[in-house]
């Protein structure tokens, strides 16, 4: 596609509910990144894929967060048993070659009530 596509744009979840956020990167982009942006703050790194390999997941805040990219293109960020502190905008970015510019999606705004 022409850009990075994320869905849904908005998600309201009840506390304890599981959610899945989707990222469709630019076609052919090798690297894919997930960021979490709390209200009024800059984005914080969550995890990074190169093709289907998850090379860095050091930013995932807890074991309730899980990300995958099974075929090296579309990625899903899953949050289990959501809590109020998970409320944030989740941004996805892709780049190719690695480090040569990062294109961001519009984000998914998650609100946990």
């Amino acid at each position, binding site marked *: 596609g022409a850009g990075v596509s994320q869905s849904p744009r908005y998600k309201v979840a009840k506390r304890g509910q599981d959610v899945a956020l989707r990222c469709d990167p630019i076609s052919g982009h090798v690297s894919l990144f997930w*960021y979490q942006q709390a209200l009024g*703050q*800059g984005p914080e790194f969550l995890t*990074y894929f190169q093709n289907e390999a998850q090379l860095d997941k050091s930013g995932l805040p807890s074991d309730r967060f899980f990300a995958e990219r099974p075929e090296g293109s579309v990625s899903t960020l899953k949050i289990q048993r959501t809590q109020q502190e998970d409320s944030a905008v989740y941004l996805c970015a892709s*780049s190719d*070659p*690695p480090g040569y510019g990062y294109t*961001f*999606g*519009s984000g998914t705004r998650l609100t946990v009530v």
Partner: protein
Amino acid sequence: SQELEQSPQSLIVQEGKNLTINCTSSKTLYGLYWYKQKYGEGLIFLMMLQKGGEEKSHEKITAKLDEKKQQSSLHITASQPSHAGIYLCGADDNAGNMLTFGGGTRLMVKP
């Protein structure tokens, strides 16, 4: 780990005025990115700087990376309401693996 500090955190200027936003790093910068973000939306790429002393311009926005590569500034000339938004600086980890972001500068331009 690298930390980026942006100043000011927020800024309100009158339309037509010039302004400068600063981004200071705790470590040497290998790649410094400037992005703009509208509320509730994704990040729009503005410019990338890599070399000490480098300066780039796009329309009325100019970004510089100092010689020591630990500070960058973003300057907007003759600001317009369309410039309003959140400006974020991000630093590359030199391996292309991730970006570390500053906290952002919220700009409001009064007509």
